[in-house]
Protein backbone atom coordinates (compact mmCIF):
# COMPACT_ATOMS: atom_id res chain seq x y z
CA UNK A 1 0.00 0.00 0.00
CA UNK A 2 1.32 3.40 -1.01
CA UNK A 3 -0.63 6.42 0.17
CA UNK A 4 0.12 10.06 0.87
CA UNK A 5 -0.43 9.62 4.59
CA UNK A 6 1.66 9.71 7.72
CA UNK A 7 0.08 6.77 9.52
CA UNK A 8 -3.27 4.98 9.12
CA UNK A 9 -4.44 6.17 12.53
CA UNK A 10 -3.66 9.81 11.73
CA UNK A 11 -5.12 10.18 8.29
CA UNK A 12 -8.53 11.52 9.29
CA UNK A 13 -7.14 14.03 11.77
CA UNK A 14 -4.37 15.13 9.38
CA UNK A 15 -6.85 15.68 6.59
CA UNK A 16 -9.17 17.59 8.92
CA UNK A 17 -6.29 19.83 9.90
CA UNK A 18 -5.50 20.32 6.22
CA UNK A 19 -9.09 21.27 5.50
CA UNK A 20 -9.14 23.69 8.43
CA UNK A 21 -5.95 25.33 7.18
CA UNK A 22 -7.15 25.45 3.60
CA UNK A 23 -10.61 26.91 4.12
CA UNK A 24 -10.65 29.08 7.24
CA UNK A 25 -13.08 31.46 5.53
CA UNK A 26 -15.62 28.67 5.08
CA UNK A 27 -15.21 26.12 7.85
CA UNK A 28 -13.97 25.60 11.37
CA UNK A 29 -12.86 22.21 12.62
CA UNK A 30 -13.46 21.21 16.24
CA UNK A 31 -11.85 18.16 17.79
CA UNK A 32 -13.06 15.70 20.47
CA UNK A 33 -15.62 15.17 19.20
CA UNK A 34 -14.48 15.89 15.63
CA UNK A 35 -16.85 18.08 13.66
CA UNK A 36 -16.55 20.49 10.75
CA UNK A 37 -18.81 23.50 11.16
CA UNK A 38 -19.58 26.50 9.03
CA UNK A 39 -17.25 29.35 9.97
CA UNK A 40 -20.09 31.86 10.15
CA UNK A 41 -22.58 29.58 11.93
CA UNK A 42 -24.91 29.07 13.60
CA UNK A 43 -27.21 31.08 11.36
CA UNK A 44 -30.04 32.37 13.53
CA UNK A 45 -33.52 31.74 12.20
CA UNK A 46 -32.37 29.11 9.70
CA UNK A 47 -32.93 25.38 9.97
CA UNK A 48 -29.54 23.78 10.65
CA UNK A 49 -28.46 21.03 8.26
CA UNK A 50 -25.98 18.40 9.31
CA UNK A 51 -24.73 15.18 7.89
CA UNK A 52 -21.92 12.80 8.55
CA UNK A 53 -20.58 9.37 7.89
CA UNK A 54 -17.37 7.46 7.67
CA UNK A 55 -14.36 9.26 6.21
CA UNK A 56 -12.88 8.13 2.91
CA UNK A 57 -15.64 9.61 0.76
CA UNK A 58 -14.13 13.07 0.37
CA UNK A 59 -15.18 15.71 -0.47
CA UNK A 60 -18.39 14.34 1.08
CA UNK A 61 -19.39 15.48 3.69
CA UNK A 62 -16.86 17.98 5.05
CA UNK A 63 -16.29 19.55 1.64
CA UNK A 64 -19.96 20.46 1.51
CA UNK A 65 -20.01 22.58 4.65
CA UNK A 66 -20.55 26.25 3.95
CA UNK A 67 -23.06 28.72 2.70
CA UNK A 68 -26.06 27.13 0.99
CA UNK A 69 -25.29 23.52 1.87
CA UNK A 70 -24.36 21.86 5.19
CA UNK A 71 -23.97 23.71 8.46
CA UNK A 72 -21.84 20.92 9.88
CA UNK A 73 -20.42 17.52 9.03
CA UNK A 74 -19.37 14.65 11.31
CA UNK A 75 -16.44 12.65 9.95
CA UNK A 76 -16.13 9.15 11.34
CA UNK A 77 -13.10 6.91 11.11
CA UNK A 78 -12.45 5.64 7.59
CA UNK A 79 -15.63 3.91 6.38
CA UNK A 80 -17.03 3.88 9.92
CA UNK A 81 -20.10 5.80 11.01
CA UNK A 82 -19.31 8.69 13.36
CA UNK A 83 -20.39 8.38 16.99
CA UNK A 84 -23.43 10.11 18.54
CA UNK A 85 -21.21 12.57 20.44
CA UNK A 86 -20.23 14.08 17.09
CA UNK A 87 -23.76 14.43 15.81
CA UNK A 88 -24.89 15.86 19.14
CA UNK A 89 -22.08 18.42 19.16
CA UNK A 90 -22.77 19.32 15.52
CA UNK A 91 -26.47 19.65 16.21
CA UNK A 92 -25.84 22.04 19.07
CA UNK A 93 -23.27 23.98 17.06
CA UNK A 94 -25.66 24.66 14.17
CA UNK A 95 -28.89 25.14 16.04
CA UNK A 96 -30.23 28.54 15.07
CA UNK A 97 -33.52 28.09 16.88
CA UNK A 98 -35.47 26.58 13.99
CA UNK A 99 -34.51 22.97 14.49
CA UNK A 100 -31.91 20.76 12.84
CA UNK A 101 -32.18 18.28 9.98
CA UNK A 102 -30.02 15.17 10.10
CA UNK A 103 -29.14 13.79 6.67
CA UNK A 104 -28.26 10.14 7.13
CA UNK A 105 -27.14 7.63 4.53
CA UNK A 106 -28.91 4.33 5.01
CA UNK A 107 -26.33 2.14 6.68
CA UNK A 108 -27.20 0.37 9.90
CA UNK A 109 -24.37 2.03 11.77
CA UNK A 110 -25.13 5.52 10.54
CA UNK A 111 -28.82 5.14 11.23
CA UNK A 112 -28.28 3.89 14.78
CA UNK A 113 -25.63 6.44 15.70
CA UNK A 114 -27.70 9.33 14.34
CA UNK A 115 -30.74 7.91 16.10
CA UNK A 116 -28.93 7.94 19.45
CA UNK A 117 -27.73 11.49 18.81
CA UNK A 118 -31.23 12.61 17.90
CA UNK A 119 -32.55 11.13 21.13
CA UNK A 120 -29.91 13.03 23.11
CA UNK A 121 -30.49 16.29 21.21
CA UNK A 122 -34.24 16.02 21.64
CA UNK A 123 -33.64 15.51 25.35
CA UNK A 124 -31.82 18.85 25.29
CA UNK A 125 -34.81 20.51 23.70
CA UNK A 126 -33.58 20.79 20.09
CA UNK A 127 -36.13 19.93 17.46
CA UNK A 128 -34.68 17.23 15.17
CA UNK A 129 -35.87 15.78 11.90
CA UNK A 130 -34.10 12.99 10.07
CA UNK A 131 -34.03 12.08 6.41
CA UNK A 132 -32.45 8.83 5.34
CA UNK A 133 -31.09 8.54 1.80
CA UNK A 134 -31.42 5.12 0.18
CA UNK A 135 -30.97 5.58 -3.53
CA UNK A 136 -28.73 2.65 -4.49
CA UNK A 137 -30.70 0.45 -6.86
CA UNK A 138 -27.97 -2.19 -6.76
CA UNK A 139 -29.46 -3.30 -3.45
CA UNK A 140 -32.86 -4.94 -3.41
CA UNK A 141 -35.20 -2.94 -1.24
CA UNK A 142 -37.48 -4.64 1.28
CA UNK A 143 -38.91 -3.93 4.68
CA UNK A 144 -37.32 -6.98 6.28
CA UNK A 145 -33.72 -6.12 5.34
CA UNK A 146 -31.45 -3.17 6.00
CA UNK A 147 -32.77 -1.77 2.71
CA UNK A 148 -30.93 0.24 0.11
CA UNK A 149 -27.73 2.11 0.70
CA UNK A 150 -27.55 5.89 0.51
CA UNK A 151 -25.08 7.00 -2.14
CA UNK A 152 -24.93 9.72 -4.82
CA UNK A 153 -28.31 11.29 -4.11
CA UNK A 154 -26.91 12.35 -0.74
CA UNK A 155 -24.68 14.93 -2.43
CA UNK A 156 -27.52 16.39 -4.47
CA UNK A 157 -29.83 16.34 -1.47
CA UNK A 158 -27.36 18.21 0.70
CA UNK A 159 -27.10 20.96 -1.91
CA UNK A 160 -30.82 21.26 -2.53
CA UNK A 161 -31.82 21.08 1.10
CA UNK A 162 -29.14 23.59 2.04
CA UNK A 163 -30.70 25.99 -0.44
CA UNK A 164 -34.17 25.27 0.94
CA UNK A 165 -33.01 26.12 4.44
CA UNK A 166 -31.57 29.38 3.09
CA UNK A 167 -35.03 30.41 1.91
CA UNK A 168 -36.15 30.51 5.55
CA UNK A 169 -38.29 27.39 5.25
CA UNK A 170 -39.18 25.69 8.53
CA UNK A 171 -38.04 22.23 9.57
CA UNK A 172 -41.12 20.49 8.25
CA UNK A 173 -40.79 22.15 4.85
CA UNK A 174 -37.06 21.45 4.62
CA UNK A 175 -37.74 17.84 5.57
CA UNK A 176 -40.44 17.57 2.91
CA UNK A 177 -38.00 18.73 0.25
CA UNK A 178 -35.30 16.38 1.54
CA UNK A 179 -37.66 13.41 1.30
CA UNK A 180 -38.73 14.49 -2.15
CA UNK A 181 -35.13 14.57 -3.40
CA UNK A 182 -34.49 11.12 -1.99
CA UNK A 183 -37.71 9.83 -3.51
CA UNK A 184 -36.87 11.20 -6.96
CA UNK A 185 -33.24 10.09 -7.17
CA UNK A 186 -31.62 6.75 -7.96
CA UNK A 187 -28.00 5.63 -8.26
CA UNK A 188 -25.75 2.72 -9.08
CA UNK A 189 -21.99 2.24 -9.19
CA UNK A 190 -19.31 0.03 -10.73
CA UNK A 191 -15.78 -0.61 -9.53
CA UNK A 192 -12.82 -1.36 -11.75
CA UNK A 193 -10.58 -1.90 -8.73
CA UNK A 194 -11.01 -2.30 -5.02
CA UNK A 195 -9.98 0.45 -2.64
CA UNK A 196 -7.34 -0.01 0.02
CA UNK A 197 -8.26 1.03 3.54
CA UNK A 198 -5.20 2.53 5.24
CA UNK A 199 -5.38 0.42 8.41
CA UNK A 200 -5.95 -2.75 6.40
CA UNK A 201 -3.09 -2.12 4.01
CA UNK A 202 -4.34 -4.33 1.22
CA UNK A 203 -7.28 -4.14 -1.20
CA UNK A 204 -10.66 -4.80 0.42
CA UNK A 205 -11.48 -7.32 -2.28
CA UNK A 206 -9.56 -8.95 -5.07
CA UNK A 207 -10.63 -8.09 -8.57
CA UNK A 208 -8.82 -9.85 -11.43
CA UNK A 209 -7.31 -7.74 -14.18
CA UNK A 210 -10.20 -8.38 -16.54
CA UNK A 211 -13.16 -8.20 -14.17
CA UNK A 212 -15.27 -5.45 -12.66
CA UNK A 213 -17.85 -5.25 -9.90
CA UNK A 214 -21.30 -4.03 -10.82
CA UNK A 215 -23.41 -2.51 -8.06
CA UNK A 216 -20.52 -1.79 -5.76
CA UNK A 217 -20.98 0.23 -2.59
CA UNK A 218 -18.87 3.14 -1.41
CA UNK A 219 -17.13 1.25 1.40
CA UNK A 220 -15.18 -1.30 -0.53
CA UNK A 221 -18.09 -3.66 -0.10
CA UNK A 222 -18.13 -6.02 -3.05
CA UNK A 223 -20.97 -5.40 -5.48
CA UNK A 224 -23.83 -7.65 -6.44
CA UNK A 225 -22.07 -9.34 -9.30
CA UNK A 226 -18.79 -9.56 -11.05
CA UNK A 227 -18.52 -9.46 -14.81
CA UNK A 228 -15.79 -9.45 -17.41
CA UNK A 229 -14.50 -6.00 -18.26
CA UNK A 230 -16.61 -4.38 -20.96
CA UNK A 231 -16.66 -1.02 -22.74
CA UNK A 232 -17.68 2.29 -21.17
CA UNK A 233 -20.85 2.13 -23.25
CA UNK A 234 -21.79 -1.23 -21.83
CA UNK A 235 -20.90 -0.31 -18.23
CA UNK A 236 -22.94 2.87 -18.54
CA UNK A 237 -25.91 0.87 -19.79
CA UNK A 238 -25.56 -1.66 -16.97
CA UNK A 239 -25.72 1.15 -14.44
CA UNK A 240 -28.31 3.33 -16.12
CA UNK A 241 -30.96 0.82 -17.04
CA UNK A 242 -31.70 -0.37 -13.48
CA UNK A 243 -31.85 3.29 -12.44
CA UNK A 244 -34.30 4.19 -15.18
CA UNK A 245 -36.53 1.20 -14.52
CA UNK A 246 -36.59 1.64 -10.80
CA UNK A 247 -38.14 5.07 -10.35
CA UNK A 248 -39.17 4.78 -13.21
CA UNK A 249 -37.87 7.68 -15.28
CA UNK A 250 -39.85 8.17 -18.43
CA UNK A 251 -39.93 10.08 -21.65
CA UNK A 252 -40.39 13.79 -21.10
CA UNK A 253 -38.71 13.75 -17.70
CA UNK A 254 -36.12 16.36 -16.95
CA UNK A 255 -33.16 15.14 -14.87
CA UNK A 256 -30.01 16.16 -13.12
CA UNK A 257 -27.36 13.72 -14.37
CA UNK A 258 -24.54 13.11 -11.94
CA UNK A 259 -21.52 11.07 -13.04
CA UNK A 260 -19.38 10.53 -9.99
CA UNK A 261 -15.81 9.27 -9.81
CA UNK A 262 -14.96 6.85 -7.02
CA UNK A 263 -11.58 8.40 -6.29
CA UNK A 264 -9.08 6.63 -8.55
CA UNK A 265 -10.67 7.31 -11.92
CA UNK A 266 -9.57 10.32 -13.95
CA UNK A 267 -11.99 12.95 -15.20
CA UNK A 268 -11.44 12.07 -18.87
CA UNK A 269 -13.10 8.69 -18.23
CA UNK A 270 -16.03 10.29 -16.40
CA UNK A 271 -16.69 12.40 -19.48
CA UNK A 272 -16.60 9.28 -21.65
CA UNK A 273 -19.22 7.74 -19.36
CA UNK A 274 -21.26 10.93 -19.37
CA UNK A 275 -21.26 10.86 -23.15
CA UNK A 276 -22.64 7.32 -23.17
CA UNK A 277 -25.22 8.32 -20.58
CA UNK A 278 -26.49 11.17 -22.77
CA UNK A 279 -27.01 8.72 -25.63
CA UNK A 280 -29.10 6.40 -23.47
CA UNK A 281 -31.17 9.26 -22.08
CA UNK A 282 -31.68 10.81 -25.49
CA UNK A 283 -33.00 7.48 -26.79
CA UNK A 284 -35.51 7.38 -23.94
CA UNK A 285 -36.65 10.95 -24.41
CA UNK A 286 -35.24 12.06 -21.09
CA UNK A 287 -33.82 15.56 -21.01
CA UNK A 288 -30.68 16.38 -19.01
CA UNK A 289 -31.22 19.85 -17.67
CA UNK A 290 -28.44 19.93 -15.05
CA UNK A 291 -25.16 18.02 -14.73
CA UNK A 292 -22.55 17.27 -12.12
CA UNK A 293 -19.42 15.42 -13.19
CA UNK A 294 -16.46 14.74 -10.94
CA UNK A 295 -15.34 13.10 -7.70
CA UNK A 296 -17.91 14.02 -5.06
CA UNK A 297 -18.72 10.83 -3.16
CA UNK A 298 -15.68 8.63 -3.32
CA UNK A 299 -14.34 5.36 -1.99
CA UNK A 300 -10.75 6.21 -1.19
CA UNK A 301 -8.64 5.17 -4.21
CA UNK A 302 -11.22 2.93 -5.85
CA UNK A 303 -11.36 3.17 -9.64
CA UNK A 304 -14.83 3.30 -11.08
CA UNK A 305 -17.85 5.51 -11.18
CA UNK A 306 -21.42 5.83 -10.10
CA UNK A 307 -24.33 7.33 -11.94
CA UNK A 308 -27.13 9.20 -10.22
CA UNK A 309 -30.23 10.55 -11.86
CA UNK A 310 -32.51 12.96 -10.06
CA UNK A 311 -35.87 13.87 -11.55
CA UNK A 312 -36.14 17.63 -11.50
CA UNK A 313 -39.10 19.94 -11.32
CA UNK A 314 -39.09 23.72 -11.01
CA UNK A 315 -38.79 23.63 -7.24
CA UNK A 316 -35.74 21.39 -7.19
CA UNK A 317 -34.14 23.14 -10.17
CA UNK A 318 -34.40 26.53 -8.50
CA UNK A 319 -32.92 25.17 -5.30
CA UNK A 320 -30.11 23.43 -7.21
CA UNK A 321 -29.26 26.68 -8.97
CA UNK A 322 -29.22 28.73 -5.76
CA UNK A 323 -25.81 30.03 -4.66
CA UNK A 324 -23.52 27.63 -2.83
CA UNK A 325 -20.08 28.25 -1.39
CA UNK A 326 -18.29 25.29 0.14
CA UNK A 327 -14.79 23.85 -0.33
CA UNK A 328 -16.04 21.42 -2.98
CA UNK A 329 -19.09 22.99 -4.61
CA UNK A 330 -19.38 26.63 -5.48
CA UNK A 331 -21.49 28.77 -7.72
CA UNK A 332 -23.44 31.96 -7.73
CA UNK A 333 -21.05 33.55 -5.25
Amino acid sequence: MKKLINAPEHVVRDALAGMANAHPDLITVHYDPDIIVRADGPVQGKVGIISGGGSGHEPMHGGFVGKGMLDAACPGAIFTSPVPDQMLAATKAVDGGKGVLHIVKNYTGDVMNFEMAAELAAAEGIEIATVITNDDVAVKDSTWTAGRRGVGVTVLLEKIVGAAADTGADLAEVTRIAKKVNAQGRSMGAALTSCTIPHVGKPSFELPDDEIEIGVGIHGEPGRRRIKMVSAAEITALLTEPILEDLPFSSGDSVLAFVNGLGGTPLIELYVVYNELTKILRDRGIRVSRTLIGNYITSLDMAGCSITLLKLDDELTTLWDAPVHTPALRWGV
Partner: protein
Amino acid sequence: MHITAEHVITFIEQVAATIKAQRDYLTQLDSAIGDADHGVNLDRGFTTVLTKLPGVADKDVGTILKTVGTTLVSTVGGASGPLYGTAFLRAGMAMGDRFELGTADVIAALEAALEGVQSRGKSARGEKTMIDSIGPGIDALKEANAAGEDFISALRKGVDACEAGMRATRPMLATKGRASYLGDRSVGHQDPGATSAFLMAQAMLGVVEQL
Protein backbone atom coordinates in the same frame (compact mmCIF):
# COMPACT_ATOMS: atom_id res chain seq x y z
CA MET B 1 -20.23 -18.70 43.07
CA HIS B 2 -19.99 -14.95 43.36
CA ILE B 3 -18.76 -12.61 40.70
CA THR B 4 -17.47 -9.37 42.16
CA ALA B 5 -17.09 -5.95 40.58
CA GLU B 6 -13.38 -6.70 40.44
CA HIS B 7 -14.06 -9.81 38.36
CA VAL B 8 -16.15 -7.74 36.03
CA ILE B 9 -13.22 -5.38 35.55
CA THR B 10 -10.97 -8.37 34.82
CA PHE B 11 -13.54 -9.62 32.31
CA ILE B 12 -13.54 -6.27 30.51
CA GLU B 13 -9.73 -6.25 30.46
CA GLN B 14 -9.74 -9.75 29.00
CA VAL B 15 -12.21 -8.71 26.33
CA ALA B 16 -10.02 -5.74 25.42
CA ALA B 17 -6.96 -8.01 25.18
CA THR B 18 -8.77 -10.59 23.06
CA ILE B 19 -10.17 -7.99 20.70
CA LYS B 20 -6.72 -6.50 20.23
CA ALA B 21 -5.24 -9.93 19.56
CA GLN B 22 -8.03 -10.81 17.11
CA ARG B 23 -8.33 -7.35 15.58
CA ASP B 24 -7.00 -8.28 12.17
CA TYR B 25 -8.94 -11.54 12.10
CA LEU B 26 -12.20 -9.69 12.77
CA THR B 27 -11.38 -7.06 10.19
CA GLN B 28 -10.58 -9.75 7.68
CA LEU B 29 -13.95 -11.42 8.28
CA ASP B 30 -15.55 -8.00 7.79
CA SER B 31 -13.71 -7.41 4.54
CA ALA B 32 -15.35 -10.47 3.00
CA ILE B 33 -18.94 -9.32 3.58
CA GLY B 34 -18.64 -5.85 5.08
CA ASP B 35 -16.27 -2.92 5.04
CA ALA B 36 -13.19 -4.25 6.78
CA ASP B 37 -13.40 -2.28 9.99
CA HIS B 38 -15.03 -4.44 12.66
CA GLY B 39 -11.78 -5.36 14.45
CA VAL B 40 -10.42 -1.84 14.21
CA ASN B 41 -13.70 -0.41 15.48
CA LEU B 42 -13.91 -2.63 18.56
CA ASP B 43 -10.20 -2.28 19.30
CA ARG B 44 -10.50 1.51 19.22
CA GLY B 45 -13.43 1.25 21.62
CA PHE B 46 -11.97 -1.21 24.11
CA THR B 47 -8.61 0.55 24.12
CA THR B 48 -10.45 3.66 25.31
CA VAL B 49 -12.48 1.58 27.75
CA LEU B 50 -9.22 0.42 29.39
CA THR B 51 -8.35 4.05 30.13
CA LYS B 52 -11.74 4.50 31.83
CA LEU B 53 -11.56 1.44 34.09
CA PRO B 54 -9.31 2.94 36.79
CA GLY B 55 -11.95 5.61 37.33
CA VAL B 56 -14.59 3.00 38.19
CA ALA B 57 -12.35 0.46 39.93
CA ASP B 58 -14.16 0.90 43.23
CA LYS B 59 -17.63 1.27 41.77
CA ASP B 60 -20.59 -1.10 41.58
CA VAL B 61 -21.09 -3.46 38.63
CA GLY B 62 -23.85 -1.31 37.16
CA THR B 63 -21.60 1.74 37.00
CA ILE B 64 -18.75 -0.27 35.51
CA LEU B 65 -20.89 -1.78 32.77
CA LYS B 66 -22.61 1.51 31.99
CA THR B 67 -19.22 3.21 31.69
CA VAL B 68 -18.13 0.53 29.25
CA GLY B 69 -21.36 1.02 27.32
CA THR B 70 -21.17 4.79 27.02
CA THR B 71 -17.49 4.59 26.12
CA LEU B 72 -18.21 2.12 23.33
CA VAL B 73 -21.05 4.30 22.05
CA SER B 74 -18.72 7.30 22.02
CA THR B 75 -15.71 5.68 20.39
CA VAL B 76 -16.63 2.67 18.25
CA GLY B 77 -19.03 4.08 15.68
CA GLY B 78 -20.33 1.88 12.86
CA ALA B 79 -23.03 -0.65 13.64
CA SER B 80 -21.17 -2.41 16.41
CA GLY B 81 -20.68 0.76 18.49
CA PRO B 82 -24.35 1.44 19.21
CA LEU B 83 -25.07 -2.30 19.45
CA TYR B 84 -22.35 -3.34 21.91
CA GLY B 85 -22.67 0.04 23.61
CA THR B 86 -26.37 -0.51 24.17
CA ALA B 87 -25.70 -4.09 25.27
CA PHE B 88 -23.30 -3.02 28.02
CA LEU B 89 -25.51 -0.06 29.00
CA ARG B 90 -28.59 -2.24 29.39
CA ALA B 91 -26.66 -4.89 31.27
CA GLY B 92 -25.37 -2.18 33.56
CA MET B 93 -28.85 -0.78 34.11
CA ALA B 94 -30.11 -4.28 34.95
CA MET B 95 -27.35 -4.72 37.53
CA GLY B 96 -28.02 -1.46 39.36
CA ASP B 97 -25.70 -0.86 42.32
CA ARG B 98 -24.81 -4.50 43.02
CA PHE B 99 -21.17 -5.26 43.95
CA GLU B 100 -21.59 -9.01 43.63
CA LEU B 101 -23.51 -11.05 41.10
CA GLY B 102 -25.03 -14.49 41.40
CA THR B 103 -25.90 -16.77 38.51
CA ALA B 104 -29.37 -15.27 38.14
CA ASP B 105 -27.85 -11.80 37.93
CA VAL B 106 -25.46 -12.80 35.19
CA ILE B 107 -28.30 -14.31 33.20
CA ALA B 108 -30.43 -11.19 33.73
CA ALA B 109 -27.56 -8.97 32.60
CA LEU B 110 -27.03 -11.04 29.45
CA GLU B 111 -30.75 -11.04 28.67
CA ALA B 112 -30.88 -7.27 29.07
CA ALA B 113 -27.87 -6.96 26.76
CA LEU B 114 -29.46 -9.13 24.10
CA GLU B 115 -32.71 -7.23 24.33
CA GLY B 116 -30.77 -4.01 23.92
CA VAL B 117 -29.06 -5.26 20.76
CA GLN B 118 -32.34 -6.47 19.30
CA SER B 119 -34.23 -3.27 19.93
CA ARG B 120 -31.37 -1.00 18.79
CA GLY B 121 -30.70 -3.16 15.72
CA LYS B 122 -34.34 -3.96 14.95
CA SER B 123 -33.11 -7.45 14.32
CA ALA B 124 -33.91 -11.02 15.23
CA ARG B 125 -32.18 -14.39 15.05
CA GLY B 126 -31.39 -15.83 11.66
CA GLU B 127 -30.33 -12.55 10.06
CA LYS B 128 -26.59 -13.34 10.24
CA THR B 129 -25.60 -10.96 13.03
CA MET B 130 -24.09 -11.03 16.49
CA ILE B 131 -27.55 -12.03 17.75
CA ASP B 132 -27.07 -15.45 16.19
CA SER B 133 -24.19 -16.05 18.55
CA ILE B 134 -25.47 -14.23 21.67
CA GLY B 135 -28.99 -15.65 21.51
CA PRO B 136 -28.18 -19.38 21.42
CA GLY B 137 -25.46 -18.78 24.01
CA ILE B 138 -27.92 -17.35 26.52
CA ASP B 139 -30.44 -20.10 25.76
CA ALA B 140 -27.90 -22.83 26.47
CA LEU B 141 -26.66 -21.13 29.63
CA LYS B 142 -30.22 -20.80 30.92
CA GLU B 143 -31.14 -24.35 30.03
CA ALA B 144 -28.11 -25.84 31.77
CA ASN B 145 -28.74 -23.62 34.75
CA ALA B 146 -32.37 -24.67 34.91
CA ALA B 147 -31.22 -28.30 34.74
CA GLY B 148 -29.24 -27.67 37.90
CA GLU B 149 -25.71 -27.58 36.44
CA ASP B 150 -23.19 -25.42 38.24
CA PHE B 151 -22.33 -22.02 36.83
CA ILE B 152 -19.03 -22.92 35.23
CA SER B 153 -20.37 -25.91 33.36
CA ALA B 154 -23.53 -24.00 32.40
CA LEU B 155 -21.38 -21.14 31.12
CA ARG B 156 -19.25 -23.60 29.18
CA LYS B 157 -22.38 -24.87 27.46
CA GLY B 158 -23.36 -21.29 26.79
CA VAL B 159 -20.01 -20.50 25.20
CA ASP B 160 -20.14 -23.68 23.13
CA ALA B 161 -23.57 -22.63 21.88
CA CYS B 162 -22.19 -19.19 21.11
CA GLU B 163 -19.50 -20.79 19.02
CA ALA B 164 -21.97 -23.07 17.25
CA GLY B 165 -24.19 -20.04 16.62
CA MET B 166 -21.23 -18.17 15.21
CA ARG B 167 -20.45 -21.02 12.82
CA ALA B 168 -24.10 -21.30 11.92
CA THR B 169 -23.94 -17.77 10.49
CA ARG B 170 -21.78 -19.07 7.62
CA PRO B 171 -24.54 -20.56 5.48
CA MET B 172 -26.96 -17.77 6.39
CA LEU B 173 -28.18 -15.14 3.98
CA ALA B 174 -27.69 -11.75 5.66
CA THR B 175 -30.77 -9.57 5.93
CA LYS B 176 -29.46 -7.02 8.42
CA GLY B 177 -26.28 -4.96 8.54
CA ARG B 178 -23.88 -4.26 5.77
CA ALA B 179 -23.62 -7.90 4.65
CA SER B 180 -27.26 -7.75 3.54
CA TYR B 181 -26.22 -5.60 0.56
CA LEU B 182 -24.44 -8.62 -0.84
CA GLY B 183 -27.60 -10.69 -1.13
CA ASP B 184 -26.69 -14.27 -2.06
CA ARG B 185 -23.00 -13.46 -1.97
CA SER B 186 -23.18 -13.10 1.82
CA VAL B 187 -23.68 -16.87 2.04
CA GLY B 188 -20.58 -18.85 2.98
CA HIS B 189 -18.92 -16.23 5.19
CA GLN B 190 -18.90 -16.09 8.96
CA ASP B 191 -20.38 -12.95 10.48
CA PRO B 192 -17.77 -10.72 12.12
CA GLY B 193 -20.12 -9.51 14.89
CA ALA B 194 -21.13 -13.05 15.77
CA THR B 195 -17.42 -13.79 16.01
CA SER B 196 -16.61 -10.87 18.30
CA ALA B 197 -19.58 -11.84 20.49
CA PHE B 198 -18.19 -15.36 20.80
CA LEU B 199 -14.75 -13.95 21.70
CA MET B 200 -16.37 -11.92 24.50
CA ALA B 201 -18.20 -14.99 25.78
CA GLN B 202 -14.92 -16.92 25.78
CA ALA B 203 -13.29 -14.11 27.76
CA MET B 204 -16.08 -14.31 30.31
CA LEU B 205 -15.58 -18.06 30.67
CA GLY B 206 -11.85 -17.52 31.07
CA VAL B 207 -12.42 -15.20 34.02
CA VAL B 208 -14.99 -17.46 35.64
CA GLU B 209 -12.64 -20.46 35.29
CA GLN B 210 -10.03 -18.58 37.32
CA LEU B 211 -12.42 -17.99 40.21
